[in-house]
């Protein structure tokens, strides 16, 4: 079907600003197919059902809007004290000097830019494959654009239990950087890996992470999206889960002009488990969007979505979460909660929590709430001598706790709690406190 004229024009403009696809190696076919997908869909528009609450204009624009990198002062970077395998990208380009040696027990890591030239590669079965599968029933054109035009990223093959986490650090240097990264992670049966990500990456950042979690494997993912005020980011996590496998993903977002985090999770084997959680804190010109789609395609799988947002001084939070239970996926246990705490009258929360269920022996529920901080609780704490600002921070942390609890590693969870505390000490609603 031909695209409407407006979509056609927007797409041609965008494509004109991107380099022509290179025609070498196994990846060229994957890129060409992704480009064809993108051309069939066009770029997202405000009128599209899943973009009604987030304006994609700045993500579609030919050039990114300038963004300054944030100086965290004397605050230590996240995950600093951990024994980890460090991989650094600066403005979306791999930095070998700053990175550790890309080899460790139980893992094989290659740079996408290097591996792409080979004629055959294991990543052929994954790169763009989960993304393509994730285009239905909801289209995700920006993910297809990423698959077609990403030039860097990592291909990680986990064959056993990775002894230490892989930590991806995204450094933002140039004010006008426009980074496109695409990672693939393949976990063999029974293998396990913890992937850490942090940093703003660029003025505009597009990232796709495709994860194939084989039977009995386990993938933990913790990400801190960086505190640049002006940055814009669109990220996609596509995960396919085999029998008895596990996915746990947690994201902390503080600041950022625009963040759209999509997660598309396919539970394809029985007894698989997917836990997705997010905590977002935004002050002022902050727009944060979590769009999640979980498909239960096998029996006795469990999924959990816990998303919490704290919004102040005109910040906007969006949550679009869907649980799809296919016919035959009996004994499904699906849970979803999305909540927002609005610290002043200017902030807003827009949510669309969806259930689509075709099996009868299921337990699915979702809840969504939005409201101000509990004045009674605030009053109680103040009457005990806690200053209003501190009391507010305490209640905010208590509100976010359910999401942070989804992090399996207690030390990381504690570190994140402390970071949030410091953030809350620096930011306050102009109306409150």
């Amino acid at each position, binding site marked *: 079907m031909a695209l409407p004229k407006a979509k056609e024009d927007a797409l041609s403009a965008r494509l004109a600003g991107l380099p022509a696809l290179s025609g070498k190696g196994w990846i060229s076919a994957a890129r060409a197919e992704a480009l064809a997908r993108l051309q069939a869909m066009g770029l997202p528009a405000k009128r599209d059902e899943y973009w009604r609450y987030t304006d994609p204009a700045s993500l579609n624009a030919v050039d990114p809007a300038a963004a300054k990198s944030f100086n965290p002062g004397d605050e230590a970077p996240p995950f600093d004290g951990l024994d980890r395998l460090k991989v650094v990208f600066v403005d979306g380009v791999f930095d070998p000097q700053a990175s550790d040696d890309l080899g460790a027990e139980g893992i094989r890591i290659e740079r996408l830019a290097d591996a792409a030239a080979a004629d055959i590669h294991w990543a052929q079965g994954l790169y763009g494959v989960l993304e393509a599968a994730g285009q239905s029933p909801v289209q995700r054109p920006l993910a297809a654009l990423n698959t077609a035009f990403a030039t860097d990223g990592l291909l990680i093959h986990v064959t056993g239990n990775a002894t230490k986490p892989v930590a991806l650090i995204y450094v933002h240097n140039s004010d006008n950087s426009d980074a496109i990264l695409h990672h693939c992670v393949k976990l063999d049966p029974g293998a396990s890996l913890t992937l850490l990500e942090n940093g703003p990456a660029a003025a505009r950042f597009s990232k796709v992470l495709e994860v194939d979690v084989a039977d009995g494997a386990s993938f933990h993912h913790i990400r801190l999206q960086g505190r640049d005020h002006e940055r814009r980011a669109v990220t996609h996590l596509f995960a396919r889960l085999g029998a008895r496998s596990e996915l746990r993903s947690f994201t902390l977002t503080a600041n950022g002009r625009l963040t759209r985090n999509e997660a598309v999770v396919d539970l394809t084997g029985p007894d698989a488990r997917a836990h997705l959680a997010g905590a977002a804190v935004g002050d002022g010109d902050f727009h944060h969007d979590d769009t999640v789609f979980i498909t239960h395609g096998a029996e006795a799988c469990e999924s959990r979505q816990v998303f919490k947002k704290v919004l102040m001084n005109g910040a906007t939070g969006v949550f679009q979460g869907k649980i799809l239970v296919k*016919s035959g996926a009996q004994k499904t246990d699906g849970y979803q909660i999305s909540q927002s705490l609005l610290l002043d009258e200017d902030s807003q929360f*827009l949510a669309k929590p969806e259930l689509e*269920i075709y099996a009868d022996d299921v337990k699915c529920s979702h809840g969504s709430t939005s409201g101000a901080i509990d004045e009674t609780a605030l009053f109680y704490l103040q009457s005990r001598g806690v200053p209003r600002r501190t009391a507010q921070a305490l209640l905010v942390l208590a509100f976010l706790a359910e999401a942070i609890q989804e992090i399996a590693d207690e030390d990381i969870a504690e570190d994140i709690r402390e970071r949030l505390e410091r953030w809350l000490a620096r930011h306050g609603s102009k109306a409150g406190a």
Partner: protein
Amino acid sequence: MTMLETVDGTEVREGVDRETIETVQAMAGKYKYGWETEIEMDYAPKGLSEDIVRLISKKNNEPEWLLDWRLAAYQRWVKLEEPRWAMLNYPEIDYQDQFYYATPKSMAKKPKSLDEVDPKLLATYAKLGIPLKEQMLLAGVEGDAEPRKVAVDAVFDSVSVGTTFKAELAKAGVIFCSISEAVREHPDLVKQYLGSVVPPSDNFFATLNSAVFSDGSFVYIPKGTRCPMELSTYFRINAENTGQFERTLIVCDEGAYVSYLEGCTAPKRDTNQLHAAVVEIVILKDAEVKYSTVQNWYPGDENGVGGIYNFVTKRADCRGDRAKVMWTQVETGSAITWKYPSCILRGDDSQGEFYSIAIANNAQQADTGTKMVHLGKRTKSRIVSKGISAGRAQNTYRGLVSMHPKAKDSRNYTQCDSLLIGDKCGAHTVPYIEVRNNSSRVEHEATTSKVDDDQLFYCRSRGMDEEEAVALVVNGFCKEVLQALPMEFAMEAQSLVAISLEGSVG
């Protein structure tokens, strides 16, 4: 053994209550209202065009402004595309393959009173159990100390057959008549309010309705008046290949109150029939309207052949402070249901409530819910929706709760629960929640589950058969909504729940 009497061919034994037999028969019979009245009809030519719009307007002796209004809607409709966002799957509707106006021949000369109405028509309503005589009693409430009266406007295909208790209502200043009569008798009121809640441009089906609406009811409750009895409209589609496009307008002036009931049925046919209605409710300061619907259009057979396509736009506008509206709906019929009774909470402290039971069995598809648009300060809304799917049916709750920046200190509570009976059906929830200020609280909860095995087992162990047990458990699941219905509707709704689920077990 002595045979006492026969009820529809079944012998009734001594000691067995006649009512029990009838109830059982009602539950066993699939669609109770599937028969057809053989009556001579006048049709407008098939299809839709400007000429048909003019013809409908002429048949109703409408003034020029209304014809222009219809024509403008028609011109707009031609350019519109049918919405496809609902989770409904049905073949393309051929809008030219329908009759847009059908009326019993005997209605050509308007009967002056119910006594002059064709007895066949009256018999139709009698058979449906709708009291067109100004009788005091309603079925099921016999023996009440003070019997309740219900005024009825009976709409048969495209025309209103008659309205009861008009004189008594007039004494209280209440206007209750068909909308075509209101256009003639109370043009100023109609002109002031028609299309002010659901404008002709609202959506595809509302625009279609604005162009071709035939009959429906008009209600005006004057200032400070508590309507002395419940008002009700009963819609019957009888003619084949004919769409029904009724339009109802209710205006409840300051401090007034009315409870309004709506019921509908249609004959069993193997072709689909279109029903696209618009209901507008205007509620001024301190007024309150209760609107209850039992929607029991023919749902099609167990293979999904036939049934009504029901595309309805219903909206209440709480214009004044402290205005209140309550929608209660039991949706058991129709092959396709597309319906979102909404509340615009414009006045400060106004309130909207929505209670819904939607049952989809066999091949039925329902996409229904509500919109609560909070504009005024301290406005409150409550949504309780119970969706039940059985057979191969698809049932979707779709709703919007919107808190505007100025709707300070407002409150919404939403609960939507779905129940699945069998592994071939689907239950879906699509809520939109838009909160644009922080002093308002919005809470949304939804669950999906299957009929509880323990509860079923308990009922079975007490000697109920499986179908009865399911009906009982489902009635329990719907309790909150059933309680919100006026009493005689609640009785009907309870047995409807059982009938609609018939054949869903085993």
